[in-house]
């Protein structure tokens, strides 16, 4: 499951235009919806066994995949949600504690790392069986591993150097246990959260076939065989309309099975009667309902047609109305950060961006609190560093806990003037070049003007307004910001990792965080975005100390590695930190209990229950 | 003839807005069984008079006076009363039978409608049966089948017959034929006039014929009312009028009408007048040989508009090309000057081949020719001043000294040079045609194609324009292909006459021969059908024609 950047525009503005009757009545209500701590929303009452629950999916999140290996184009968030109810992954995090997996929901006991951190041994849980009666074994994991290894290029979540490249050797110890030798030492928290979560045992005794009607064998153990088996399974997995009927997919080990999977994206999960684990479902069925627009969802929500839905951003003022209809309204914070990368390799502004004092001045001009309150209607949380600010946890460094650069335009302006910038015609101009303490800094030439260009994602009023606010306050300290908005895909396309001499390096600042810029796996390390050589280090931020800290966070076993990293980057400002919007504002029927709003956007519907 | 008049118009005055008095004190009476012609040129108020009898004038018109139909004053009637009169007591036949019939309904439906509007209890079936009878009555064969046809499927003559059938459907006391034959070819016109005469005899209707054509008047009318500028200038029996016109205007009108008579040819002051037919002396101005022009017709089939026509015009010679509409005469004219590409055959202009000429050669050749069109309103660019229109050939051929030339040209067509700053729409039809002629002679052409240059003009205007044209031809000596449907005009201007019928050249020869001693049946019929403005002569010709 891909929990990183969510590519889909959930509530594209135009589709969410109209509200519903009688809402003017609610116009006076406070728009604040955050602050209700996630927890048990059931106000007492007795948990029931059985019953049905309907869950509303956001627009454009239509599920289209259940096979445990996702190919490109099949990484929508809800694919993973559905899949892990049917085919249990090795490990699942539920967000209540990001430091360790929720063993109950996975297929294996906690992993055991060697002292040197270079090998890991995993034992499968004893009580799990596939629907065909076979036990869930280490061989089933090996089957998955062999298919991945032979077909890694077709795996949507493959990153070169990471899984499975960083596994030197996969050894079956016994029926239930296997050991993996790693190519280097890794931080165990990181490895479990960011690598092992991708693994998922698959019923080798049912799926190890090369063609329709073929015999089961050990084909996966040769690369050629693995390719054939993979191709066959992927072919079957493409037949969406057969998800509920294909005998292959009946061989499940999770608490649910697929009962219905329509082409429009409606999915009904039914309690798996053959589930043998300790995390059996309370409910009989859970229906995931697709919606064409956020507005549509709101309308159905108001009619009581969903038990677990959400409020579109523009309907936040209707919170009271919704609550009066028997819902609990709670923001669902994402395990994400939102930021604007500086392109340090931009030939014009790169040298300017490399000056820490400039970045500090910029950061001090971002009025995060007001932006979050006025523009995001309190549905965004100010963020001060590389680790998600909420829920606060053990990874948050001291420096990041409180804003190191409070909003202060005077101070920001003073930073510029004290480094030799003078405001001419409203734009700060470098008058004292050089590397000294009161000079503009190395590489900044005399007469350089602080004129930045920002590429931003179009389609959201909140983003538009945020950028205008940024532009407005930057202009007050002498920085002229010009804004160009484009669709999200174009923004990403136009702000690649680049070298100064490349034409593609003309971008300076880029914002793509209407839905949050970066969603982390459970372990929020920065090797993908802030390491000097990271693939998504769009701005080519390069800082030896940061690199060191990133490396430590993934490969050292020190418990403070993450906190150090968090504190350093909060101060060193590799990007402009921006308020992070909530994943969604949920509306949950008061009769629905057992709901945990996993910041990583996962769900554990087997634990939901209805109360009387 | 002492019965009370079927239609009596007394002191009719019609004004539009506050100023324009279209009809000024007109009184006309038509008795049952009588045919009265109202004759006049455009703007004389004759059509307004006819329209007012049925209350069909636009609401802006103010009508005073009395119009009595069978003793009832039409002007005093309200909407329902008027409708009861329309069609039932007084019926009308209009000029353009194509547009006057509703294109969306079948002929039968439209005739039946006329019946059912006034006979509320007539069944649909009965109405259609009666419609068929009516169509037969107006000489349409195969009436049953025609009922189901749409107007566009019929020829112009048939359409006008349908209009008449519709008009007589309720056996009205009065039938008004408002320029009912103007849009028709002469042969068809003759038939329709015959039909009207028959209907009068059969039904005893009073018929009011509105026309500008003195030939038609002579052919059909018992009495004639001459109108000029909204007033009646003369009323008389048809014989008296033609024999002893009283009013000055009537006299002028009658002298203006070209007559198809031997000797009614212009006196040519030209010294070097060649013998007719001797075009070979010198290079011919235009030589067409085996000319074929095809158009893409319906269903992609090719229609021959011009079928192997050969014709030669000697230098300085005027050849009249006569034919009815659709005969291909205009196409010949346009092909001759290179506006249409022939499918085969050749055109030699002034000794050079036009068919193969391109670009500069073509333009050089065209410079020596010009063309005058029928409708001066459409042959002058409405967005250009008169001066610019005349100067255009000079500009195209980069000839300087334009101002003087334009002034001289205007003078030579007897227009004041100050006209040059005006726009075409501000001028009268005759003036516009003069401009067209001035433009045509601007480059001193050796050949002029005149395509019905006077057909859109009133007779008195036509006479002056023809005079002018002939004078210029005399003076400048250009050869001319004079295309017209009017035999009298051809008789007036042409040295030689060629007759076309459905794309083919039927007959060609010296004027006297073709017009007065035609060899071909078709020519004979054509000549016989043209009404002459002389009641006695016309009666004779009619008898002759019917015996043909």
């Amino acid at each position, binding site marked *: 499951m*891909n929990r*990183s*950047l969510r*590519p*889909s*525009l959930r509530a*594209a503005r135009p*589709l969410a*235009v*109209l509200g*519903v009757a*009688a809402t003017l009545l609610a116009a006076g209500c406070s728009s604040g919806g955050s602050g209700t701590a996630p927890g048990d929303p059931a106000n007492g009452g007795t948990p029931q066994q059985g019953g049905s629950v309907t869950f509303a999916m956001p627009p*454009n999140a*239509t599920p*289209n995949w259940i096979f445990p290996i996702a190919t*490109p184009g*099949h*990484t929508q968030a809800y694919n993973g949600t559905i899949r892990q109810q049917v085919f249990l992954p090795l490990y699942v995090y539920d967000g209540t504690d990001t430091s360790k997996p929720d063993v109950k929901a996975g297929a294996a006991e906690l992993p055991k790392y060697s002292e040197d951190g270079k090998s890991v041994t995993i034992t499968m849980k004893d009580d799990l069986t596939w629907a065909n009666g076979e036990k869930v074994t280490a061989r089933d994991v090996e089957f998955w591993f062999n298919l991945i290894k032979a077909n890694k290029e077709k795996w*949507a979540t*493959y990153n*070169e150097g990471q899984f499975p490249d960083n596994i030197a050797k996969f050894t079956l110890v016994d029926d239930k246990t296997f050991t993996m030798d790693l190519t280097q030492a890794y931080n165990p928290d990181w490895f479990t959260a960011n690598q092992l979560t991708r693994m998922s045992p698959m019923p080798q005794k049912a799926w190890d076939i090369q063609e329709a009607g073929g015999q089961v064998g050990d084909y996966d153990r040769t690369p050629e065989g693995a390719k054939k088996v993979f191709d066959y399974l992927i072919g079957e997995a493409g037949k*969406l309309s057969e998800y509920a009927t294909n005998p292959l997919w009946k061989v499940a080990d999770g608490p649910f099975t697929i009962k219905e999977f329509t*082409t*429009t994206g409606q999915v009904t999960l039914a309690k798996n009667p053959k589930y043998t684990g300790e995390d059996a479902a309370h409910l009989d069925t859970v229906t995931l309902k697709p919606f*064409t*627009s956020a507005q*549509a969802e709101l*309308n159905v929500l108001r009619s009581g047609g969903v038990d677990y839905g959400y409020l579109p951003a523009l309907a936040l003022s209707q919170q009271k109305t919704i609550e009066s209809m028997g819902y609990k309204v709670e923001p669902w914070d994402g395990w994400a950060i939102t930021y604007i990368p500086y392109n340090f390799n931009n030939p014009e502004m790169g040298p300017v961006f490399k000056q820490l004092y400039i970045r500090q001045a910029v950061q001090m001009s971002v009025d995060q609190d007001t932006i979050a309150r006025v523009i995001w209607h309190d549905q965004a949380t100010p963020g001060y560093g590389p680790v998600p600010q909420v829920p606060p946890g053990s990874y948050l460094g001291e420096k990041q806990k409180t804003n190191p650069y409070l909003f202060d335009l005077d101070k920001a302006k003073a930073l510029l003037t004290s480094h030799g910038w003078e405001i001419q015609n409203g734009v700060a101009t470098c008058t004292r070049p050089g590397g000294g303490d009161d000079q503009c800094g190395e590489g900044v030439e005399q007469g350089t003007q602080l004129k930045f260009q920002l590429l931003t994602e179009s389609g959201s009023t909140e983003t538009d307004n945020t950028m205008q606010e940024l532009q407005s306050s930057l202009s007050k300290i002498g920085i002229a910001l010009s804004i160009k908005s484009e669709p*999200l*895909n*174009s923004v*990403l*396309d136009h702000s690649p990792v680049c070298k100064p001499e490349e034409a593609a390096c003309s971008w300076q600042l880029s914002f793509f965080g209407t839905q949050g810029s970066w969603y982390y796996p459970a372990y929020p390390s920065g090797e993908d975005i802030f390491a000097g050589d990271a*693939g*998504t280090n769009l701005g080519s931020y390069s800082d030896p100390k940061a690199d060191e800290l990133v490396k430590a966070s993934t490969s050292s076993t020190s418990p403070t590695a993450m906190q150090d990293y968090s504190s350093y980057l909060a101060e060193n400002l590799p990007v402009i930190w921006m308020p992070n919007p909530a994943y969604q504002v949920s509306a949950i029927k008061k009769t629905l209990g057992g709901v945990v709003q996993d910041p990583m956007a996962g769900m554990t519907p087997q634990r939901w229950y209805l109360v009387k | 003839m002492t019965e009370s008049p079927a239609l009596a118009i007394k002191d009719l005055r019609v004004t539009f807005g506050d100023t324009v008095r279209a009809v000024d004190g007109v009184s006309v009476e038509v008795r049952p069984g009588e045919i009265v012609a109202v004759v006049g040129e455009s703007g004389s108020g004759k059509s307004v008079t006819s329209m007012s009898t*049925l209350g*069909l004038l636009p609401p802006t018109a103010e009508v005073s006076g009395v119009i009595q139909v069978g003793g009832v004053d039409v002007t005093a009637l309200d909407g329902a009363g008027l*409708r009861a009169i*329309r*069609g039932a007591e007084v*019926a*009308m036949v*209009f000029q*353009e039978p194509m*547009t*006057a019939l*509703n*294109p*969306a*309904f*079948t002929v039968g439906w439209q005739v039946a*409608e*006329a019946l059912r*509007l006034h006979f509320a209890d007539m069944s649909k079936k009965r109405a259609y049966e009666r419609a068929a009878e009516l169509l037969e009555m107006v000489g349409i064969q195969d009436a049953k089948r025609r009922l189901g046809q*749409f107007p*566009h*499927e019929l020829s112009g003559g048939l359409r006008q017959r349908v209009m008449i059938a*519709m008009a007589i459907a309720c056996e009205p006391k009065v039938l008004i034929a408002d320029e009912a034959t103007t849009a028709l070819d002469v042969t068809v016109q003759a038939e329709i006039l015959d039909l009207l005469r028959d209907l009068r005899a059969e039904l005893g209707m009073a018929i009011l014929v509105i026309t500008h054509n003195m030939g038609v008047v002579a052919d059909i009318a018992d009495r004639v009312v001459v109108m000029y500028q909204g007033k009646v200038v003369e009323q008389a029996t048809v014989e008296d009028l033609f024999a002893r016109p009283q009013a000055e205007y009537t006299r002028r009108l009658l002298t203006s009408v070209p007559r198809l008579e031997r000797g009614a040819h212009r006196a040519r002051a030209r010294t070097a007048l060649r013998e007719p037919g001797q075009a070979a002396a010198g290079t011919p101005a235009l030589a067409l040989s085996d000319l074929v022009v095809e158009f893409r017709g*319906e*269903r992609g089939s090719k229609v021959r508009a011009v079928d192997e026509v050969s014709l030669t015009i000697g230098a300085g010679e005027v050849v009249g090309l006569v034919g009815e509409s659709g005969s291909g005469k205009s196409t010949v004219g346009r092909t001759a000057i290179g506006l249409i590409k022939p499918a085969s055959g050749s055109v030699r202009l002034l000794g050079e081949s036009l068919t193969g000429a391109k670009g500069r050669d073509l333009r050089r050749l065209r410079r020596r020719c010009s063309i005058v069109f029928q409708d001066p309103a459409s042959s002058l660019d409405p967005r250009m001043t008169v001066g610019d229109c005349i100067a255009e050939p000079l500009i195209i051929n980069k000839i300087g000294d334009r101002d003087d030339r334009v002034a001289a040209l205007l003078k030579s067509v007897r227009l004041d040079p100050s006209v040059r700053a005006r726009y075409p729409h501000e001028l009268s039809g005759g003036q516009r045609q003069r401009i067209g002629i001035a433009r045509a002679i601007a480059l001193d052409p050796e050949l002029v194609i005149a395509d019905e240059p006077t057909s859109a003009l009133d007779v008195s205007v036509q006479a002056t324009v023809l005079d002018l044209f002939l004078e210029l031809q005399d003076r400048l000596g250009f050869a001319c292909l004079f295309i017209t449907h009017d035999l009298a005009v051809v008789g007036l201007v042409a040295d030689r006459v060629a007759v076309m019928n459905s794309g083919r050249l039927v007959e060609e020869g010296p004027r006297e021969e073709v017009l007065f001693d035609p060899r071909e049946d078709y020519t004979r019929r054509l000549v016989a059908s043209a009404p002459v403005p002389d009641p006695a002569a016309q009666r004779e010709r009619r008898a002759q024609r019917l015996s043909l």
Partner: protein
Amino acid sequence: MTRFLAKRIGQALVVVALVTVIVFLLLHTVPGGPARGILGPQATAAAIAAFNHEHGFDRSLPEQYWMYVSGLLHGDLGASYTLNQSVSSLIEQRIPKTLVLTGLSTLVALLVAIPLGVWQGRRRKGLTDYFITTLVFIGYATPVFFLALILVIVFAEKIPILPVQAPQAETLAGLFADSRGLVLPILAGAIASVAVFSRYMRSAVLDNLAEDYVRTARAKGASERRVVWLHIMRNSLTPIVAMLGYQLPVLFSGALVIESVFNYPGMGLLFWNAAQTSDYPILLGAVLVIAVATVIGSLIADILQAFIDPRVRGAIK
């Protein structure tokens, strides 16, 4: 007739071919191609390259076009990148609903606009003509999304008699079962069309009023009402019908907006969502279907015209 049809179908094929070329080229000038949109921002360069290879985006444009066209010739519109379904089945599901929406709103518009236009044509320059013209202009000038908002405020809120949401049923029967929900979307679509149609009708009536046959009909003793509603009306319908054929893409554009406002699960939403996710096969397919519909629409309009206007019938026989 067959000849006419053959010619028109030939033209239509040329038009459709041109549409495929235009749309194909346009989509391929979009920077980056669809890979980024489908795979998400986190996708690596290798993943994007693999996606592009799989879908042939690494081939030359003519080659890609040929692949697409040969698929089309086999009736294959391709498969959606994101919805795991063939484009044809997706369009098949959605198009009846959009047809119902646009069809009904056009019908309503015609039923209102034709009498309105005729009536205005008769009373040209009168006070009522000016008044209706003003209303019609305002109707035309109001953006549909604004109009929809006003309709919702008035009919769903101030006077709460109608639901704000279109029926969500999967089937057509379901749509009609909740017919009250169809009222506002149809109304919104109809108002803009009324403006266009009634202007056409008014012009046509004005043109026809000046025709000679009107005088003939009057001279026959036909009442003014008969002249206008029978003679003139019949002839004035021709331009409306001719226009209807070409109105289809306009109607579809309108449907896109209306569907998104009233959450009507038709082609418009499918198209819009596909545009958001760069799902090229759906975009291509939808545009192609609309183009074909337009071409067929204008063909039908021609044939309909022949039924109304016998002159046209004569010309194409």
